[in-house]
């Protein structure tokens, strides 16, 4: 017997829209981080490279987690 999804389709649509907005905001943050890091790197300031890379990877992990959650809703 097929298990019913946890949320209705309209609810999943709302969740997907919310996740989409969060992902867009995170990507804008990553874009800002990237340009700031590039400016620092070209100016010879390398102290920021590791923290910026870790922050960017955390953002990527968040985005991946959100997508994983979205796929999980359909099971």
């Amino acid at each position, binding site marked *: 017997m097929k298990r019913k999804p946890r949320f*209705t389709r309209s609810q999943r649509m709302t969740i997907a829209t919310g996740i989409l907005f969060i992902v867009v905001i995170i990507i804008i943050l990553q874009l800002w981080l*990237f340009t700031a890091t590039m400016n620092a790197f070209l*100016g010879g300031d390398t102290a920021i*490279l590791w923290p910026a890379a870790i922050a960017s990877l955390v953002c990527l992990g968040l*985005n991946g987690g959100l997508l994983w959650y*979205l796929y999980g809703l359909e099971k």
Partner: protein
Amino acid sequence: MTNQDSEQLTVPPDGRSPAEQPRWRQDFPIDWPQDEYLSRREFIKFLLLTSAAFSTGQLWFLVADFLQRREAVPAPQVIAAVADVPVGSSLIFKYPADSPARLLVRLDEETFVAYEQQCTHLTCPVIPHVDVGELHCPCHEGVFDLLTGRPLAGPPRRPLARVTLEIRDGNVVATGIQKRTV
């Protein structure tokens, strides 16, 4: 049938019941809400690639920094004899030999300054105007202070990399490169 089950049914784009749809749509139904949901999900998946690209760029900075650190510091290099550079004149040189062009400017009898010649905005060559104490980038009207190399006007936000100089035995000698963010 529960309410949740009814939401799983195919819904045509115009929202009317399946029986009211034209024959072709009955044969090839399009589930509009499901279609929108899937396109949104696929868009999020694409954005994840964008996010991964930014992270890859950040990691590339680390790799580039690692490679730069492995390069040896350039050895001091004689640029010109002091007598060969009159006050108010400039000279283009390369330091180290395979680097982009650098600019040596003699401000007065005692003072020499040297910077990379590429504007920090879009790498156009900058031109010294010793009389007004500025370096001018003609591409987008960027202006740098000749004494410090810091941006004064226009799009550049980063100072020009400075070449540190010494006077040894009547020669101007480049001893290092100093990149700066402010």
